[in-house]
């Protein structure tokens, strides 16, 4: 008997194979577009070309933090400390430059390095001592908020430090008065982080082992992948992103506020998950996170344009919109899966 080749077709048909995992993100993007068109139809000036760029100004910090969070969640973990680390970084920038008089060109890199180290420390505790990520990073949430308040319980201005005026300088694309828009440097920092993250996640060994560890840590270990390095790495990246988010916040407001970013970790997690990443790890995209941040920003914008909602109706409407969004996303994704099956 000649040995025949085993040709196994995957249960899911090959045609849609490459595409199947893009269905959630496709649904997200389609819904975003729908929201935007709905806004244009309902509100005057919603078609202002600055509207979309504005999403990437106000949310630049959140986007950066959410990218870091994407790494962590893809690896099957979670990082609750990002909001506090971000506030701490901003405050550290402010205190070191204003009170201690150090040059910003030293302070900013130092803060970023600190972010990496603190993240790596958390990651090491999580991996080597097998502490649940939720607990380890929750300790970080309390710790850095506490430290921030101990540096200063007042907001602190850093407008006099020249360095921090750089971030909000704008690049114009066309004349703002007729169809153009402008973006400050901080948005480009955010874009840079996204692109870098995309490349790292999809085209490097480290990135793929993040997915592998998220898929099954046990298997990744048995396959001989560097699980320790990967897990410590994702928290270091998240720490770095949180610190960078803090620096961007310093650029954005030229001030440090000890209560900044309270609850930001939830916004970041929400953005990541709305963007189609599974909280259980192993599946998702960093571009989905971008879409997730845009969804959250777009919801806020629509509420602002609606303008007549009381505080509580605003919350309820955000909740309802989010609900509609999630359900539609599920329905689209499910019918997509059906079509493939």
């Amino acid at each position, binding site marked *: 008997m000649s040995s025949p080749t085993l040709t196994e077709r995957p249960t899911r048909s090959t045609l849609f194979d490459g595409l199947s995992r893009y269905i959630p993100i496709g649904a997200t993007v389609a819904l975003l577009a729908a929201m935007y068109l709905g806004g244009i139809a309902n509100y005057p000036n919603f078609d202002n070309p600055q509207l979309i760029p504005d999403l990437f100004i106000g949310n630049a910090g959140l986007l950066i933090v959410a990218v870091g969070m994407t790494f962590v969640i893809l690896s099957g973990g979670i990082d*609750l400390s990002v909001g506090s680390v971000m506030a701490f970084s901003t405050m550290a920038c402010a205190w070191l430059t204003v009170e201690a008089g150090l040059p910003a060109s030293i302070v900013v890199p130092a803060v970023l390095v600190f972010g990496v180290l603190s993240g790596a420390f958390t990651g090491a*505790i999580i991996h*080597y*001592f*097998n*502490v*649940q990520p*939720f*607990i*380890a990073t*929750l*300790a*970080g*949430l*309390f*710790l850095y*908020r*506490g*430290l921030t*308040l*101990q540096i200063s*319980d007042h907001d602190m201005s850093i407008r006099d430090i020249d360095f921090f005026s750089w971030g909000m300088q704008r690049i114009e694309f066309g004349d703002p008065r007729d169809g153009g828009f402008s973006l400050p440097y901080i948005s480009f920092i955010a874009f840079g982080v996204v692109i870098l993250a995309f490349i790292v996640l999809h085209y490097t060994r480290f990135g793929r082992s993040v997915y592998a560890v998220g898929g099954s840590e046990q298997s990744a*270990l048995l396959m001989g992948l560097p699980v*320790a390095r990967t897990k410590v790495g994702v928290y270091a990246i998240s720490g770095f992103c949180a610190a960078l988010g803090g620096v961007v916040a310093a650029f954005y407001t030229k001030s440090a506020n000890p209560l900044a970013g309270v609850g930001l970790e*939830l916004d970041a*997690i*929400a953005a990541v*998950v*709305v963007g189609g990443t*599974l*909280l259980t790890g192993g599946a998702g995209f960093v571009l989905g996170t971008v879409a997730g941040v845009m969804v959250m920003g777009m919801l806020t914008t629509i509420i602002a344009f609606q303008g007549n909602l*009381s*505080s*509580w*109706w*605003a*919350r*309820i*409407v*955000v*909740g*309802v919109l*989010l*609900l509609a969004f*999630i*359900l539609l996303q*599920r329905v689209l994704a*499910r019918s997509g899966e059906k079509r493939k099956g």
Partner: protein
Amino acid sequence: MNLASPVQTAGGGRASAYFKRLMWPLIVLAALLIVNIAVTGFDFIVPSVHDGRLGGAFVNILRRSAPLLLIALGMTLVIATKGIDLSVGAVYAIGAAIACQYILNGDQSALGVVVTAVTLALAIAALIGAWNGAMVAYFGVQPIVATLILMIAGRGIAQLITGGQIPSVADDSPFVSIGRGAIATVPVPIIIGVAVFAALVLLTRTTALGMLLESVGGNPEASRLAGIRAKGITVLAYLIAGICAGLAGIIGAANLGSADANNGGLWIELDAILAVVIGGTTLLGGRFFLVGTTIGVAIIGTLEVTIINVGLSSQWQFTAKAIVVFIVAMLQSPEFRAWILRPFRTGRPGRTPAAHDPEKAPAK
């Protein structure tokens, strides 16, 4: 044909494993209590009777922790199913708002009104819980997202109910005794806390619910194939969590005599999850420990008081909490204990030096 196996098996594995899990949180709790006693004397722990009600610092901690305990207990069940419920803080606010507002609109001192108000609040809370569960079980939405929706919208709903005001119930309404009263000198919130704890322990451990929850959380697909109503059980867990959160809100509101839709139970979900995890239940689902959760709640409640008693400024409250959480987490980690103890037991036989680039800690 069964040969006696020379391999020794562990006897009574479960009970001792259970105790081991709880030992470290208990030690931390004891340490906190000792710190408080050292600072404020034995009065701290000794209950006193005042106005026909037990008082004293420790009893107060227990009484004030009752809402957190309820929420954490409900959260334990949800976490056992591999889920998480972020909306409990909002449900707390809704429960409080409904109860207070309903009483305000009726005859404040009528017992019937109060009973109806409480029932109504609990029913709505249960409904919200069931909704969360349905989103997770039937629509396949990730728990964190499903409950995030109500975490955001829920406070809005609570504010809508109160019109953004803080409705306050008159001090003579029977309602406030849910928060401030005492039965046989034991404060009512403690009684409710103990009762709910006992009820949940009975519900999960004398029936098979506990095991089925653990099964669904541990391996949903295997549970489904074993014929378990995984979806129904998931919904039930969220529903219980909702009721617990609503009840917590009622106790909180009764204690204050008012419902603050915006701040009531703010961030209590984080504390609740923390208590659950300190108590030894992992967020990965599966095994859960209601007793552990109770100890976790006691630690958190005592910690807050400790900060005040030791005389730390408010700025310290976060840092101190971080330190205690960190200590508990480390003590619970066998790997950490092994690592710390390692210098004390070198030179064990059979330990050959590693030839290949050793990592810092043993692989799992």
